[in-house]
């Protein structure tokens, strides 16, 4: 599903170069729930950004479903993300002026589905995640856990192949965190999504099929 070959990422600030990823090779299979773990600053989020096409590696190749996505233009990457990837961000990242339903239906509208179908589908997914009382709520009218579940609904509504989750529990209390992890786990199993989750909490890493540890910019043991 995802193949990463010798990925390096170097940040330059003036004369100073910071090597964050120092040559990473890994492979993630279809339907696999993978947790990327590591200490703060180890490069786990940077790796996620490269895999999810939000950033461009300094060198190396990323191949998803047999397509060399690392060579794509920005427009091609945007289209690829729309059709194949879903995102769950640490701080929910919902669009503040859109209701829960509108946030969730956004990827569907962009894929060309009509308004009625998009609303119906978005509500369906929200209902599955236990948010049937929050269809018309704006993000600031929901709790952190509810917002994160809306964010998951947005990530899965268009049935992407891969869901990338960047520290999805970082801003949540224990109970909400467990609920969110459970949803991700169930989604992965039920819809056969591949899930790549960055987390620094060992407890949540345990629910994953596999844990990839990043140590100082490399895959650790």
């Amino acid at each position: 599903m995802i193949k990463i070959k010798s990925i390096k990422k170097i940040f330059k600030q003036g004369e100073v170069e910071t090597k964050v990823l120092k040559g990473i090779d890994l492979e993630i299979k279809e339907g696999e729930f993978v947790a990327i773990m590591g200490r703060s600053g180890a490069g786990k989020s940077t790796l996620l950004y490269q895999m999810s096409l939000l950033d461009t590696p300094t060198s190396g190749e990323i191949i998803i479903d047999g397509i060399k996505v690392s060579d794509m233009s920005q427009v091609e990457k945007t289209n690829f993300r729309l059709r194949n990837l879903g995102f769950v961000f640490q701080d929910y990242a919902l669009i503040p002026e859109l209701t829960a339903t509108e946030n969730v239906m956004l990827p569907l509208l962009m894929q060309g589905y009509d308004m009625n179908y998009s609303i119906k589908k978005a509500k369906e997914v929200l209902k599955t995640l236990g948010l049937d009382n929050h269809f018309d709520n704006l993000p600031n009218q929901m709790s952190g856990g509810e917002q994160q579940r809306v964010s998951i609904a947005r990530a899965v509504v268009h049935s992407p192949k891969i869901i990338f989750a960047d520290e999805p529990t970082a801003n949540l209390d224990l109970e909400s965190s467990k609920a969110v992890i459970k949803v991700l786990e169930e989604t992965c199993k039920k819809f056969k999504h591949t899930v790549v989750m960055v987390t620094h909490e060992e407890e949540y890493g345990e629910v994953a099929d596999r844990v990839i540890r990043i140590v100082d910019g490399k895959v650790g043991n």
Partner: protein
Amino acid sequence: MLPVQIGFFLAVRQIKRSTLWSTVLITAVMTLTFLNLVVVSGILVGLIEGAQYAVRERYTSDVIISNLRENKFIEDSPRVLRVAETLPNVKAISPRYVVNGTAEANYQYRTDPNTIPEEVGTQVVGIDIAKEDAVSGISDLVVEGRYLQEGDFDKVVLGSMLLAKYLQIDSEAFPALKDVEIGSKIRLTIGDVVREVEVVGITKSKVDEIDRRIFMLDSQVRSMMRTSEFNLDEIAISLTDEKYADATKQALIANGIDKLAKVQTYIDAQPKFLQDIKKTFALLGAMISSIGLAVAAITIFIVIFINAITRQKYIGIMKAIGINASAIQISYVFQSLFYAVIGSAIGLFILYVLLVPYFDANPINFPFSDGILVAPLGSTMFRITLLVLTTVVAGFIPARIIVRKNTLDSILGRR
């Protein structure tokens, strides 16, 4: 098409859920800009159009017939008058005798014959009082005393600019009579005929040609001219609608009147300097308006830029989940469009429902005209188009700057 729909979807929600005060503020800026665009030049042009209107209403009317340069009067005046009376759309006709003369005041107190007499050169106009009033509404122009009546022998109505108290210019180039009031006697001289007449009224019209004239009954002027012939000098023709002016002129020419007299529409007869000033004022108005337009463009640029920069993270997230850049840019274009259209619509309402009727009813009192607000619909629509286009460009540029930023940098708030 899809980015337009998504752009519209996002714009509607952003406008709907933005704070009321920011919407009111931006819309107010657009409304004021629109009014600045239309009203400033409209009033400047209106000053001159007010003057042109006054010349037509008070002096030339819709069509004016006057003597040819080589003649002292309108040849075969009775025939010209007869032809004019037979033409369609003619509402009223005023035949006028116009003769040069002088008016002298305070001659009763001049004991030393070597002192300079207090006199002014003027045009004495003999009128049919009812017909002249029907054409020029002269009786409405009387600011002191009264209008002429039948049987007013040796009585005159003076134009205000012949009197020092109205002229208020103390210069030898502009002589004026002092201490002349209603009931005062003045000495009127036409050729070698001198007559003492009584001032019964004073007119004030803001039209120089009227305000430097003396009006008398036509029979009185003819007797002073010592002529029994009907040799008219001006014939002013009022029509049912000014739009018939050219057709009436052509009809008069077709009847050979142009061989006997000069035939002009009110536009032909307008002083050229008024048209020149009108063009200059229109240019001046356009210059002032363009500054307003630039201010509006900068305002919208700043508003959209701040909006986009504070929403930079969400723009990044939208791009991350696959919303393409065009859709996001278009959403800002729609927002700019919304503010421009709503601002212009409110401006249109204020302009045509409040300002234009107000200035029509209460013209601005300028020394040389009653200024009105000129805002023809065609030119107003052009200015709206200009405002909308400027606003759309001013909204698009900052949105593009922000949207073009690296997606991850936007999400993480990196510079």
